[in-house]
């Protein structure tokens, strides 16, 4: 005879349960149990994972939760039907929303109010039914609300104190006529996890094992019991064991019953959402295609609309349209990306900007009948206004119908070592030393312990190794997905509980994006993108200063000057193609069309690099190698990338065409690719793919290469649809840089933080292009950077390069570190508006600036219009604010001491320290003569040197990169007043000079120049610290992995 475990908590009862939901389900199945309940503490976080596994194994899953009451007691609730599940979700939502993040509590009246469709199991340690004082009133209320659905839960964990508890429970239940049901509180699927459960308990309470005392359980009796053991434990009361089956049979609800309807728009009378969508699509299409929609596009639109209607996704598209319309109305720049860019309907609705007549994209990647899964549309929104869109969604759909998707934060090796180490009471600095040696998914072994000076034979360290390994991938807490929203026709809290996020005004559901995907629910992604802010600011500046109204889709296409600039790698600040690696590729790929940019963006990615596809593509593009296809059937798939697969979509198409995958299987392949490192699921495609390809006459070698590439893609693959959307922005920003560098610089500086380079580099690049950049000034600067007329206005072009601009860029006060836009700027602005400033004293007095701010302004040289000697200004300013707080007169009779004048070197250093950049010069400019005396050339000279020549160079490190695909090679970018020098450090060189490479801001490099296709690298042989009189100031390198 069997039984059903009705009170099981997984590791989604955060830091309490010690087994994954799937492990509990698997164990129950292997023990021959017909059903198992998942009742996590105050949540249903793990039910989707358990549901998926239970469905695979054919075991029934009962859904419920252990609820915490405001009095600290607990009760277990199980969902009998859909209504009960909705009640449970509503109840948890109520308990969660009234509490700060991570806490939950409900009242007894609320339990009774939501009783319909729920079974209550009342028992266990923290239940009032076993407490010393009888809960008369609560018992009466619960009986009234639950009637025959209230059970007394008799629990036995072989603890002495359970004997009197059980006796009280039996007495009270007997008197009230409540039936009893047997159970144990399951916290892990096997007793072997007991140690981990103890550790989790310690982490939850913030204590070490030696301090934990009774916080940890007294024995290992919280495992999932087999039927025999369970029945033996309740030999004296078989009826309560039988009743577990009765309870289970009453709970018929399964997650498959969740029927999800996307919120429908308010439609004009008599119009169905399908008609409304069609109407909007065609209206938009006519606008997009200048009034004429070609027959091929019309056919594509009709095909898409039919499928959307058939799958009942009209509401989803209308929602996206609604959000995009809101953005348009409010002047918020947005653009859809992701697989939605494969859809003509999305283009017509204005959701995406990729013209389907120009790019042949795979619609099935976006939506397919066979897959019958909701489409995924990512909407990029200018980053500084994304919050407005989020609040619009909340407002439009209500907090009941819209909530952000969760992101489950899990233990990785480092966090595991740190937290488990604390539990063992190890010195935190020693544990940190160990953690730093580990990579993300590393296993911890004895060798690493020895390396950090910990004794591997010490029992505490042995336990640390074992348990830190075991805890990996356990959920730690919930955070918010960067932009994912779940929207529902019914209130979202009937589907899944909603809780408070850490951020103010954010509510978040208890499931993450994988859960939504597994249940086939819709998600809307609203993501912030700095480049859109930059474009928006540029367009405002163009209109304001050049009287040019230029929406993004009207930027002149295929502009040869722009592509010339791109081919020269003159792309500092250009979206997507500004990184060191992209800049190194540009002269080799030499993009001349929009689609070339799509490829350029995709090719410098780990997928194509690890797949060995970059060089074949470049050779074929440069006619150094013949374009050939492994099989004629693959020609349509690979034609646009010269026979070399570069995009994720191509891999899917390839699987369909060459290995007879169905579109659904191909999409599964995509998902497995994305998860291969974690799950190893990709391997199950290996034989199928290779075998079928070989069967079709494709060479084994190619088939294997394709499979390896798929694996590479898995982790880092870049979809063509993403690249297509990004390429539009990349081209737009390039065009503005090429023709309106002043506008480009000003907008980019105002859109910070974003992109690859620090503001100092952007300013230096602008200056090298002849842009006049004016220093921060309390009289002339606004908060943001502005454009001001130049004395020698007019754009001059020399040797194909834009020199100067009509306007000078006036740096804004936003760049003075420590100045606040909301506190300080309004005061300064008001003082300036009132009447012109006459002196430092005047500003300090009228704007009531505090000492710290005056110091900052003085350090940044912002008082230069009044006084050039910054040290004297600083001294005076400090004195003034002292007088101000004393309520004394501001004018001071005290003579100013004589201070040493700042040298140019010091002036620039002060600028960098106070504002992160200098308009007065590059930090290396004052040292140039020194460097020249030592025979050290500048960057411009290095670029002009010949291939293979030995060179020594010294520059400021602005970027360090160690890509995972480069086998330990480190790339660095060094800068001086004339430009950049790219450095390549082979692993052994890096290892030898690791300290210098990691720490020096001003670095010397000796090596050999490598020049190919106009790309120059200095391959380092030696690193050294340059010997100069003064150490130049840098802005700190941006380092990437």
């Amino acid at each position: 005879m069997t039984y059903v475990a009705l009170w099981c908590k997984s590791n989604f009862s955060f830091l309490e349960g010690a087994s994954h939901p799937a492990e509990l389900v698997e164990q129950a199945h292997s023990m021959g149990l017909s059903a198992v309940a998942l009742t996590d503490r105050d949540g249903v976080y793990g039910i989707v994972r358990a549901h998926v596994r239970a469905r695979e194994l054919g075991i029934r899953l009962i859904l419920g939760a252990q609820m915490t009451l405001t009095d600290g007691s607990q009760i277990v609730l199980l969902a009998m039907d859909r209504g009960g599940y909705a009640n449970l979700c509503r109840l948890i939502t109520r308990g969660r929303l009234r509490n700060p993040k991570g806490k939950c509590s409900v009242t007894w009246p609320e339990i009774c109010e939501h009783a319909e469709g729920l079974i209550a199991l009342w028992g266990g340690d923290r239940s009032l039914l076993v407490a010393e004082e009888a809960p008369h009133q609560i018992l009466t209320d619960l009986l009234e609300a639950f009637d025959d659905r209230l059970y007394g839960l008799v629990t036995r964990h072989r603890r002495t104190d359970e004997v009197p508890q059980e006796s009280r429970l039996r007495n009270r239940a007997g008197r009230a006529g409540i039936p009893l049901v047997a159970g144990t509180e399951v916290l892990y699927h096997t007793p072997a996890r007991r140690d981990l459960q103890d550790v989790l308990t310690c982490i939850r309470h913030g204590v070490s094992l030696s301090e934990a005392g009774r916080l940890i359980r007294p024995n290992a009796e919280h495992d999932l019991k087999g039927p025999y053991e369970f029945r033996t434990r309740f030999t004296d009361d078989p009826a309560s064991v039988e009743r577990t089956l009765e309870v289970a049979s009453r709970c018929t609800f399964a997650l498959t019953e969740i029927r999800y309807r996307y919120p429908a728009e308010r439609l004009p009378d008599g119009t169905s959402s399908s008609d409304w969508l069609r109407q909007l699509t065609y209206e938009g299409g006519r606008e997009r295609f200048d009034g004429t929609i070609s027959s091929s596009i019309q056919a594509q639109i009709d095909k898409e609309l039919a499928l959307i209607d058939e799958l009942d996704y009209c509401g989803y598209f209308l929602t996206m349209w609604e959000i995009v319309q809101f953005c348009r109305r409010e002047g918020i720049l947005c653009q859809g990306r992701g697989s939605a860019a494969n859809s003509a309907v999305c283009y017509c609705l204005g959701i995406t900007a990729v013209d389907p007549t120009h790019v042949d994209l795979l619609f099935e990647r976006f939506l397919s009948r066979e897959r019958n899964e909701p489409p995924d549309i990512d909407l990029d929104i200018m980053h500084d206004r994304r919050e407005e869109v989020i609040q619009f969604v909340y407002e439009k759909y209500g907090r009941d119908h819209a909530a952000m998707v969760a992101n489950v934060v899990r233990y990785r090796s480092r966090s595991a070592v740190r937290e488990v180490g604390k539990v063992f009471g190890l010195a935190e600095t020693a544990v940190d030393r160990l953690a730093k040696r580990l990579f993300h998914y590393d296993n911890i072994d004895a060798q690493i312990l020895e390396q950090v000076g910990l004794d591997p034979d010490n029992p505490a360290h042995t336990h640390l190794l074992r348990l830190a390994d075991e805890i990996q991938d356990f959920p730690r807490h919930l955070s918010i997905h960067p932009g994912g929203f779940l929207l529902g026709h019914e209130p979202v809290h009937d589907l899944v509980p909603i809780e408070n996020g850490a951020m103010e005004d954010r509510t978040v559901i208890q499931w993450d994006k994988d859960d939504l995907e597994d249940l086939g629910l819709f998600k809307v992604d609203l993501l912030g993108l700095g480049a859109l802010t930059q474009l928006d600011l540029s367009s405002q500046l163009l209109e304001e200063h050049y009287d040019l109204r230029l929406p993004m889709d009207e930027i002149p296409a295929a502009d040869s000057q722009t592509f010339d600039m791109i081919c020269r790698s003159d792309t500092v600040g250009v979206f997507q193609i500004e990184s060191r690696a992209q800049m190194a590729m540009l002269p080799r790929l030499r993009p001349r069309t929009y689609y070339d940019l799509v490829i350029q963006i995709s090719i410098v990615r780990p997928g194509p690099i690890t797949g060995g596809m970059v060089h074949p593509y470049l050779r074929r593009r440069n006619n150094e190698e013949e374009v050939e296809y492994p099989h004629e059937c693959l020609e349509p798939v690979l034609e646009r990338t010269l026979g070399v697969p570069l995009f994720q979509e191509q891999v899917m198409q390839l699987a369909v065409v060459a290995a007879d995958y169905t579109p659904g299987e191909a999409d599964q392949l995509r998902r497995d690719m994305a998860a291969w490192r974690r799950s190893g699921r990709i391997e199950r495609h290996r034989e199928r793919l290779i075998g079928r390809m070989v069967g079709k006459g494709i060479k084994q070698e190619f088939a294997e290469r394709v499979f390896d590439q798929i694996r590479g893609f898995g982790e880092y693959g870049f979809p063509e649809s993403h690249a297509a959307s990004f390429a539009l922005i990349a081209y737009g920003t390039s065009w503005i840089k090429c023709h309106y560098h002043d506008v480009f610089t000003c907008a980019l500086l105002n859109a910070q933080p974003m992109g690859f380079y620090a503001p100092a580099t952007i300013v230096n690049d602008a200056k090298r292009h002849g842009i006049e950049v004016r220093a921060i000034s309390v009289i002339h600067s606004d908060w943001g950077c502005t454009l001001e007329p130049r004395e020698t206005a007019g754009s001059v072009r020399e040797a194909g390069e834009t020199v100067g601009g009509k306007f000078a860029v006036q740096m804004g006060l936003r760049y003075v570190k420590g100045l606040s836009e909301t506190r300080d700027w309004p005061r300064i602005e008001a003082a300036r508006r009132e009447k012109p400033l006459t002196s430092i004293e005047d500003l300090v007095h009228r704007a009531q600036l505090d000492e710290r701010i005056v110091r900052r302004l003085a350090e940044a040289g912002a008082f230069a219009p009044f006084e050039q000697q910054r040290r004297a200004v600083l001294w005076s300013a400090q004195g003034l604010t002292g007088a101000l707080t004393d309520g004394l007169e501001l004018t001071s009779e005290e003579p100013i001491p004589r201070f040493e004048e700042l040298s140019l070197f010091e002036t620039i250093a002060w600028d960098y320290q106070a504002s992160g950049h200098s308009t007065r010069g590059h930090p290396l400019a004052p040292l140039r003569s020194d460097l020249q005396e030592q025979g050290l050339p500048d960057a411009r000279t290095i670029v002009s040197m010949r291939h293979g020549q030995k060179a020594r160079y010294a520059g400021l490190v602005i970027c360090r990169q160690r890509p995972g695909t480069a086998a330990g090679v480190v790339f660095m970018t060094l800068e001086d007043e004339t430009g950049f020098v790219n450095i390549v450090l082979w692993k052994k060189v890096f290892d030898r000079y690791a300290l210098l490479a990691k720490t020096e801001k001003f670095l010397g490099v000796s090596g050999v120049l490598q020049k190919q296709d106009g790309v120059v690298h200095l391959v380092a042989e030696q690193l050294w610290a340059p010997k100069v009189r003064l150490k130049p100031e840098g802005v700190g390198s941006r380092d990437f992995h």
Partner: protein
Amino acid sequence: MDRMACVSLPAFPLQLLLDRFPEWADIPAAVVERDKPQSLILWANETARRCGVLPGQRYSAGLALTSDLRAREISAAEIEQGVSRLSDRLRLFSPEVEPSAEQPGVFWLDASGLEAIYASLLEWADRLHDELSQAGFRCAVVVGFTRFGTYAVAREMSFARGKKKILVFRRAEEELDAARRVSLRCLNIDPELRDSLDQLGIRTVRAFIQLPGNGIQQRFGLEAHQLHRFASGDFAIPLHPQAAPQPLIREIDLEPAESDMHRLLFLINRHLGSLLNTLSERREALTELRIRLRLDVTADDSKRERIERIRTADPTLDPLQIMNLVRLRLMGDALPAEVVGVDLAVRSTRDAPKQFQLFRQLTQRDLQAADRALARVRAQFGDAAVAQAQLEERHLPEASFTWRLLDHVSPPAPQQVLMRPLVRRIYNRPLRLPPRPRSEPDGWLLRGAEHGHVERFSGPYVVSGGWWGGSVHREYYFAQTRYDECVWVYYDRKRRRWFLHGEIG
């Protein structure tokens, strides 16, 4: 002219750390603010500095530079202890030693007249330097004329390279000149002030004192102004030497030896009076009296002395109360031999004056009287005689309470327990039971036939855990014997044995 010396031990907490972990001398090591990865590095050794690890960085940032970086926190108590230890050493060279209150590792000594004892002040400084070096400390010793002058130069020297850092100024002007050349970076001044001055291009003491004093005060506050006055020579504080702690003891030799306890008590009483007078002058009160009776030599060498510690209920200067306790302690036992000497040592505390109560409220329970009574019990039966059981949140029965020595009685705060625990008596050490035979024709006889065989047996209730060090797995049972004795037994699964752990009643 008075001579003053300054001894500066650079990065003193780091020196203490390396004293504690000498094996860290050759690997990167640092003193951190707290034992946390994000904690600030306060001091780093030379090896760590070579790796780029600098004070002010976070430990985690230092770790990124060298993955071998060892670190420990040096607590204020450890530093205080170190300062006290060094003060004692320095007193060997000068009776007047003043450790810096703000800057551990800096000491001022009065060097006046010492050239009369040593060959010269240089010789004195040299020996002092050697003493500290032999103890494993790095330091600089400067003999001069002023507190600030010697300090500034010693600080600068202590950071410089070189083995022996000793300097003796012959003339005050030399010291003044040298002090003014010292870089502000060497002085222990507020980093914010130092950076502010650095920005103004003020980097030496000389440049600093050229700034107007009032301007300094207005901009940087009183502390900076005080430093300015010190450095300018406008203000000087004389040496405030720390007094060496004088133990309060009386050593009384008895000739002839004494064997009568009453006479001994009179003797103790007489000397106790003078000790209490001294305490009273120091505004202190006695908390413990240590009595050492030196015995006449007997065959048994281990009984050469008898030591007794008498603790009072509260700090007191009342000789009657103390002598009562002494009497209770000494009168109980006969002396094993004649007493040839008595040593009295006093432990005291600062006497906190109490307000006399005009109308003293009578309480039902006089806790002070209870404390005095306990002190008497302790005096008569020993310190361990008064203890209190305290509950502990532990699972193992024997660990669920501990005995704590009771110094003071506190008012009772009983908690209402409706259901009393079944087990009423727990053996501190479980009693080992004979192995349970496989065949029990007469039933299981736990404690022999006279207690009867077990008739009812309930369990098991499992207590297991401690897997991280000495794991335990016990299966507890309630056993009722034929003669209605209820006992609590367990089977220790690891040791494979039965034990009796408690009685039920």
